[in-house]
């Protein structure tokens, strides 16, 4: 189910502006990779290249190679829509569809694609996904209530349930807990720890403790200055990164001396 992603010499452009330069890294399957770094260093942009979401912005393009299980994600015969079915995404702010109920939100990936599904299958998908997102017990009695009736933390778990309902190989999370309170954050972090048994997870976070708690490997991005591209400074096992980083700037950032 989970897949490995290899990135080699990746440059990301918005029009003629080089946003991220020369990223080479390997994202291991069934593990959590955390991307940390100061604001504007390109970690979210880089994350969005992993499922070609950045292409939503006109003029965005990449150079270099990005392969999942040996297949070039930017190959000419690769459909970006198909990539996004395999590489799901959870956003910073919970964004359940306001016109849909809790159950419909979970089934959104199926229903919005006009795929037919029997009622019993739909029930199974809803239950499995909500159980997978640790939300089932809280919402099982009100599945037909609007998704927006839930609290922020529950909405975010609903969005995770929605993302895993389409059974992706990889799950990208763009600061999934930054809009949530500490208790909801803890729930999301526990969930990430469970999900990594089945999925390859890449998470962007501004919270260093969170990166240390949830991730197996950590990548530190930094930026030379305004208008300059973001770069991958170093990447290693999370424990090594937080105890004995090789680069001086990583140590400065992690210990809170800047950023």
């Amino acid at each position, binding site marked *: 189910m989970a897949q490995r992603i290899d990135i080699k010499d990746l440059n990301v452009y918005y029009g003629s502006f080089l946003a991220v330069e020369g990223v080479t890294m390997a994202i291991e399957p069934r593990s959590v990779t955390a991307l940390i770094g100061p604001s504007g260093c390109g970690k979210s942009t880089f994350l969005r290249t992993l499922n070609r*979401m950045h292409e939503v912005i006109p003029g965005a393009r990449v150079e270099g190679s990005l392969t999942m299980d040996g297949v070039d994600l930017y190959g000419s015969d690769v459909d970006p829509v198909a990539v996004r079915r395999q590489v799901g995404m959870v956003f910073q702010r919970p964004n359940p569809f306001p016109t849909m109920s809790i159950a419909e939100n979970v089934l959104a990936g199926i229903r*919005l694609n006009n795929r037919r599904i029997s009622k019993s299958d739909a029930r199974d998908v809803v239950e499995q996904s909500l159980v997978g997102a640790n939300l089932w017990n809280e919402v099982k009695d009100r599945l037909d209530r609007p998704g927006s009736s839930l609290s922020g933390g529950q909405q975010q778990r609903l969005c995770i349930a929605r993302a895993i309902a389409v059974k992706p190989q990889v799950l990208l999370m763009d600061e999934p807990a930054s809009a949530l309170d500490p208790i909801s954050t803890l729930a999301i972090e526990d969930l990430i720890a469970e999900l990594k048994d089945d999925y390859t997870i890449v998470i962007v976070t501004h919270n260093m403790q969170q990166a240390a708690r949830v991730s197996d490997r950590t990548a530190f991005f930094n930026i030379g200055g305004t208008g300059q591209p973001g770069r991958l400074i170093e990447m290693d096992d999370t424990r090594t990164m937080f105890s004995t980083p090789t680069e001086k700037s990583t140590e400065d950032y992690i210990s809170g001396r800047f950023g």
Partner: protein
Amino acid sequence: MATLEQSAEPRSDRPTTRELLTRGDTRRKATDRVMAVVVTLAFVVALIPLLSLSWTVLSNGIGRLSPYFLSVSMRGVFGGMDAGGIYHAILGTVLVTGVAALISVPIGIMTAIYLVEYGTGPLARAVTFFVDVMTGIPSIVAGLFAYSLFSLFLGPGVRFGVVGSVALSVLMIPVVVRSCEEMLRLVPNELREAAYALGVPKWLAILKVVVRTAIAGIVTGVMLAVARVIGETAPLLVTVGVIDSINTNVFEGRMMTLPVYVFRQYAQGLVPCADGATDCIATINIDRAWAAALTLILIVMLLNLAARMISKFFAPRTGH
């Protein structure tokens, strides 16, 4: 130590906290009162014509309005006869406006989708510019345009329902585009991204997320556009003409419409009744005009009510 002494013995020229908090800005308070009066007056002034109009139409029109009036045409009615109705005009208005909506709503919504979801660069700017220009077209010009367009193919003197619908569409499309564009822009980008991230193709995301989320506003916008054109008189006079009997075929023959009916009846004016004639009402034409005007207002109100109900039904659920 120095600060302690200072706070224990405040300098006499410095106002106390009580003074600072209670000594209100008298000038601000006066301005506030004046502005409150001005704003309320403006509201009342805006309301006077509306109430006066409603009252005039209601009091003049209610006498003639009856199930009979709504269910017969003007066929065979002449002079001061206590007879005749607006059935043919209601049908004509509903058909001509309905066909106009059928033409303009798809074009308008799709144009709005193009502008919001796809349009970039000179083409989108040109479309926006021409939509703005179209908003300002005088209705009689729209009527002449439709008339001359059909005359090119079908010869001069052509008059039937669809010609009027095309004229109304010219007036309606920009209104639909503008209101739908506003509504589509209100849909948060996060919802589009959420749909894309689930592997939903762009067209399905637009159809099932963006349009679905905005549908309540779109319905309201379409209804406003219908209300905008349903009372148009001049273009229909040119393109659809005048007739006294029922015609339900929008592709052939003249049709009566409510605004044109009102105009016609009022233009005919008082009937010269013979002295002592019991079956002759001198003001019959004017009475019919008022009753038809009242019916037109009621139809617009019903449409608005229906739009409200539809948009309430489709509105995103908030959970309370």
